């Protein structure tokens, strides 16, 4: 009897594996060692959205809490704190408010206040109406508007130090204006506009006026562009004049933008300033409240008195801004 040939079990396995294919084998082997069923959490669609929203907002809110909320709370509490120079320790006090009062009675604060008011009037009373007229002119496709609107934007894009430097050289005794005044108009002495006290503030105001010529124009142009042509055409058919169009159509229709600029200008009442740091950093006669605060922080690292003065201004300006907002909200609204 012929002895039955016993096949090597490994070769049998190989043959089977070839026959059933690798993946089938893998499946069978896996079946021998069953895996624990994974507890994969199925996240709800709305939960996913919420996670996305808060993931996006987390860092901006944290940033806001640190750089806005904390900084401003610290500024408010600074008004009630001071530092003991001998020990270097902070202590709580109401004395800062008395010192602020002293600044007004004994220091130059009233002068800074007058200057602040002048810069504010220039940026509000002058800039807003003239920006409306400028916007109207461009909106009505006046000649040269394309060139003018690019040129009007140039002072905003050029570095203020560079622009101020060129301007002061241009009008100086050695510059173009000085040369013309001396040789054409026979002016005996061209003043150093920003170095002489009697001309410095006027020079700063003129500079702010001249290069702030565009004013709020950019903002208003967007608002005026949204006024429907049909409305204006209908008004023309009724025979409105240009002034009537501006007063009764354009201003009411762009009022949300206009009122916003009016409210923000009132809320920034005590912060109005000019290019003092560039032209007259050492001439106190030209300083404003805003520049005094900046100077105290930068030069002396003095925190408490500027913070106190700032808090006083906030207490005064906030109700004013809110009142202006209420008044402007009621204007040009229909019941």
């Amino acid at each position, binding site marked *: 009897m012929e002895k039955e040939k016993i096949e090597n079990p490994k070769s049998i396995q190989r043959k089977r594996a070839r026959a059933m294919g690798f993946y089938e084998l893998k499946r069978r082997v896996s079946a021998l060692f069953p895996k624990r069923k994974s507890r994969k959490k199925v996240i709800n669609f709305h939960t*996913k*959205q919420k996670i*996305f*929203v808060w993931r*996006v907002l987390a*860092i*901006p809110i944290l*940033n*806001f809490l640190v750089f*806005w909320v904390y*900084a401003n709370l*610290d*500024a408010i509490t600074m*008004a009630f704190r001071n530092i003991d120079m001998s020990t270097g320790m902070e202590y709580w006090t109401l004395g800062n408010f008395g010192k602020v009062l002293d600044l007004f009675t004994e220091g130059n604060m009233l002068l800074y206040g007058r200057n602040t008011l002048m810069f504010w009037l220039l940026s509000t009373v002058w800039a807003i109406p003239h920006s409306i*007229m400028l916007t109207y*002119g461009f909106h009505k496709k006046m000649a040269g508007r394309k*060139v*003018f609107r690019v*040129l009007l934007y*140039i002072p905003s*894009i*050029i*570095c203020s*130090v*560079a622009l101020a*430097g*060129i301007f002061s*050289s*241009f009008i100086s005794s050695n510059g*173009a204006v000085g040369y013309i005044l001396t040789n054409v108009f026979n002016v005996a002495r061209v003043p150093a506009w920003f170095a002489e006290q009697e001309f410095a503030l006027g020079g700063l105001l003129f500079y702010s006026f001249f290069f702030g*010529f565009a004013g709020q124009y*950019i903002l208003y*142009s*967007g608002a005026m*562009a949204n006024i429907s042509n049909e409305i204006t*055409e209908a008004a*023309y*058919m*009724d*025979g409105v004049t*240009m002034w009537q169009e501006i007063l009764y159509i354009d201003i009411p229709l762009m009022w949300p933008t206009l009122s916003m600029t009016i409210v*923000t200008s009132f809320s920034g009442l005590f*912060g109005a300033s000019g290019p003092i*740091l*560039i032209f007259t950093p050492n001439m106190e006669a030209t300083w404003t*409240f*805003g520049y005094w*605060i900046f100077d*105290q*922080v930068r030069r002396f*690292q003095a*925190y408490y008195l500027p*913070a*106190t*003065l*700032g808090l006083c*201004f*906030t207490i005064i*300006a906030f109700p004013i*801004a809110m009142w202006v907002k209420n008044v402007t909200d009621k204007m040009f609204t229909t019941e």
Partner: protein
Amino acid sequence: MRFRRKRDLLDKRRTIWEKMFFILLFLVLFVWAAIVVYMLLWAFMCSLKTNLEYVNEPLTLPVQLHFENFKIALDKLSVNNIGFLGMLWHSLWQSVGPALISTTMALLVGYVFAQYQFPGKAFLFGVIVFTMLIPLYGSMAASYRLMFDLKLANSYLYLIKCVGGFGGGMLVPYGYFKAMPKEMREAVYVDGGSDDIAFWKVYFPLSRNIFIPLAMLTFIAEWNDFQNTLLYFDKMPNLALGLYYFQQEIQYVVNNPAYFAGTLIVMAPVVILFIFASDKIMGQLYSGGLKG
């Protein structure tokens, strides 16, 4: 209906006063523009003169072109032993970084507020409006101290401050995304995409119309900023601060042509950017106030 005077928008017939107004406006703008353009050309002309030429004949063209003034300006633009190249680098990172980071963050926050409903949305929106209305004058002292306490001043870590977007800056993107249909987001969900994909692959590319001008405006503002640099970056000065110190110095060491060359060097990048991208910026700004 009786029409006193019929005219349409393109009709040029106007009353004499209206015509006078337009003529006056044109003349005022023309004179203003002529002075500004002449002043800038004059500065360029003076930057190529010798100092003697500049003092004696400020209105004439340069006899010879003295480009060496630009080299002198490059040497003079130095603060705390940091030269032109160092300041150029600081100008770049201090302007490109905030432009990209803060604009992207403002877009993200604006997108979330415009496209999603979530608890606390009204409250957070109210906070943003409140921060815009409340006048805060005394916060400079606290911010200054905070910047130094957190060691963000004179450091690249300053860019952390730009990772915000929660404030008035998000209102423009908010208006833009509010006008976009929510169906695009739903189409992404149907295709198995996530909220991240919806923003980065669909909404963000579509928002380049506002991203580019907003980023450019931030870049220009940061490039030109010297006041914040003076406060927080005295050891990492940018070109604007270098020019500021150069201007202070020029009062004692008179070399005006070199100073003009310096101003032109600092102005150049922004002016070149404006020339190439003015259509983009101006178009967005003037045709509807960045509404897209």
